[in-house]
């Protein structure tokens, strides 16, 4: 084991290297590119025995990844944002082939307008695809979860591709101290890939991705994939326990922070949870009974563990770093579906949209969220959803609009 100061992107690359990925179809996109460049460097220097092929699009990249996994090699690939969207037909297409591989997504907001900065709208578009999703909050977690993701994807009862998500910029380009496990220890945790019966070989004819006629076989196979995804919950628990035994780092399906005796809970996914934890500490110092719950698994969604950790809480503030147009925060809906009708569910479930396009969330904003929960509990009235957006920010937009207006009306004629 060595300790290094590396970025989230480099941590993802280390995960792929230690997993001994055989094959990497690749395509560059900001802020992911450093992952494939790092791996390409190791392949070129002979430090990693992996075949990399530069594809012409993410659509082709995911096709090649699924096809190679279905042929029987361990596949790694990575993308971000528009790339994930460009690949989306195949993101929904390949899981049904039941060929496991790992895709690292570096979250970045979607157009329009165009941005390079992070939010989770990209990866949530893959929510219903059949890919399982693991969301990371630190660079260490990115490396470790990439290894866990291979075990999960290749688990006999699962056999589905897995997305490991890290936030662009906040993790992708941030250096943190990371323990890089010994290759031999990783080999013990993650043995070589067994394609089971999903493989193309002469003399073993196999048809993949075929048509079905009628709704009966369609419903059957779609539901079977859903059941396999649900099997990901016990499988993940088993694998995470193995990982903890081997490497001493715990990765439950939920991260809970000071939530056991908390009355108020922040529910937040990804790296912004580290900011929220800092805010929790400060509120605790001020005597507020606040805690945090962060889902590491988005698919399968840890319904039952969430019901347990949130039972009896007075209120939950859901921070969504995404926006479903015409509905609001996706996590808020997800959590509501888990809690609704439970007798001991928190009576207040407030929705906050924040961190769009990389917008920071200030400590005071976390304090305000808890105040909103307080007030709602006192008034007995659920609060309306709220966008985290300050008067200063609005003034910034007004300035840009003033420039645009001046240039359009009084600029070069």
């Amino acid at each position, binding site marked *: 084991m060595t300790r290094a100061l590396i970025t989230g992107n480099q941590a993802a690359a280390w995960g792929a290297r230690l997993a001994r990925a*055989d*094959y990497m*179809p690749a395509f560059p996109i900001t802020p992911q590119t450093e992952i494939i460049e790092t791996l390409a460097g190791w392949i070129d220097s002979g430090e990693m*025995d992996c*075949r990399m*092929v530069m*594809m*012409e*699009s993410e*659509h*082709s*990249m995911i*096709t*090649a*990844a*699924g*096809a*190679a*996994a*279905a*042929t*029987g*090699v361990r596949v790694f690939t990575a993308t971000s944002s528009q790339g994930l969207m460009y690949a989306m*037909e*195949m993101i929904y*297409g390949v899981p049904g082939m039941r060929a496991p591989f790992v895709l690292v997504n570096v979250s970045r907001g979607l157009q329009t307008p165009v941005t390079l900065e992070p939010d989770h709208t990209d990866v949530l578009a893959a929510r219903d695809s059949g890919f399982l999703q693991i969301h990371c909050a630190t660079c260490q977690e990115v490396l470790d979860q990439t290894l866990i993701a291979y075990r999960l994807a290749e688990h006999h009862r699962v056999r589905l591709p897995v997305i490991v998500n890290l936030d662009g910029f906040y993790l992708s380009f941030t250096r943190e101290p990371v323990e890089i496990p010994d290759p031999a220890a990783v080999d013990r945790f993650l043995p070589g890939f067994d394609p089971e019966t999903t493989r*193309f*070989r*002469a*003399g*073993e*004819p*196999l*048809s*993949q*991705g*075929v*048509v*079905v*006629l009628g709704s009966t*076989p369609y419903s059957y196979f779609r539901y079977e994939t859903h059941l396999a995804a649900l099997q990901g919950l016990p499988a993940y628990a088993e694998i995470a326990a193995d990982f903890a035994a081997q490497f001493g780092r715990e990765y439950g399906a939920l991260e809970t922070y000071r939530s056991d005796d908390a009355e108020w809970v922040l529910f937040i996914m990804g790296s912004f949870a580290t900011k929220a934890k800092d805010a929790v500490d400060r509120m605790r110092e001020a005597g507020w009974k606040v805690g945090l719950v962060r889902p590491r698994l988005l698919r399968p969604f840890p319904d039952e563990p969430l019901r347990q950790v949130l039972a009896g809480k007075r209120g939950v503030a859901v921070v969504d770093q995404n926006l479903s147009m015409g509905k609001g925060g996706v996590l808020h809906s997800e959590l509501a579906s888990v809690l609704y009708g439970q007798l001991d569910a928190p009576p207040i479930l407030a929705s906050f949209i924040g961190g769009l396009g990389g917008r920071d969330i200030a400590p005071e904003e976390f304090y305000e969220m808890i105040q909103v929960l307080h007030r709602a509990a006192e008034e007995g009235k659920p609060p309306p959803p709220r966008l985290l957006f300050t008067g200063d920010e609005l003034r910034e937009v007004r300035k840009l609009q003033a420039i645009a207006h001046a240039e359009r009306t009084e600029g070069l004629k």
Partner: protein
Amino acid sequence: MSEQTVTIYKRMKDLPSTRLLGAGTPMCAGCGGLQAVHEIYDILGEKTVFVNAAGCMTLLAVYPFTPFRGSWLYTSMASAPAGAQGVRDALDILLAKQRIKQEQDLDVVVLTGDGAAYGMGLSSTSSAIERGLDFIYVCYDNEGYGNTGQQTSAATPHGARTSTSTDARGFGGFKKDLFAIWAAHRPAYVATVIGSEPLDLARKIEKAKAMKGPRLIIALSPCPTGWDFDPMESAEIGHLAVKTGVWPLKEYENGQVTHTKVPSEWLPVEEYLKKQGRFAHLFKPQRNKALISEIQTRVDAYWAEVERA
């Protein structure tokens, strides 16, 4: 065919007499594409994985049936060559790391219609060729989006009526020259074939099978439903496509294009056109002399250029 090539297919009776591809597929009666795929499969054999893009032939493998004795992978309309890349690379890795034996290896064959080959899949095809992918691409070209009812595609010929080009002149555009586009990438091999010329087809597939690198085949596929003719006419229309010069049988290799079957006497194009309902408007209610002669002029100009070269 170059002089040096030794073919085992010298006469029709040399062609394989057993059929590898199973019967009873959902393809239409008289499907010229299926005829070509039959003949191609007989030569390529069962140590193959067919990587398919959305089109008529996607319906060959309908759970739990397949006419193939080997393997099949459906991808998407745009990315069959990328699927072939993934399979080929994975097999190469497995061979290099000695996880499979040489005899477990497969030939990777992309199978798409013209909709994918001429249009949506052109980017992934171009890239697979540019990467030197070791694969065979078979395009069954029925000159329209046939599986959805023969809408105009980039392969539709000038003047043909399609379900989206219904006026008196038919389709106003021109068939894209995919052979030239593919050949411009300088791959190992490009050829045109047609099921109604099985000897020419067999020799080309035999040759392609023996090569490495990107090998691309376009099979003109007379289509009873899309072109509007009686299924029993399918082979005859194929013959006429060649005899009128509408479908030149040729191959590209080492920078050279060679025509493999040049009739000593040409039939007029209208012999080919008048057999097909999609060109009926050229003859009824009155003869559209201008358009027929325009089509003839283009075919003549093509062959005049071949002669000059």
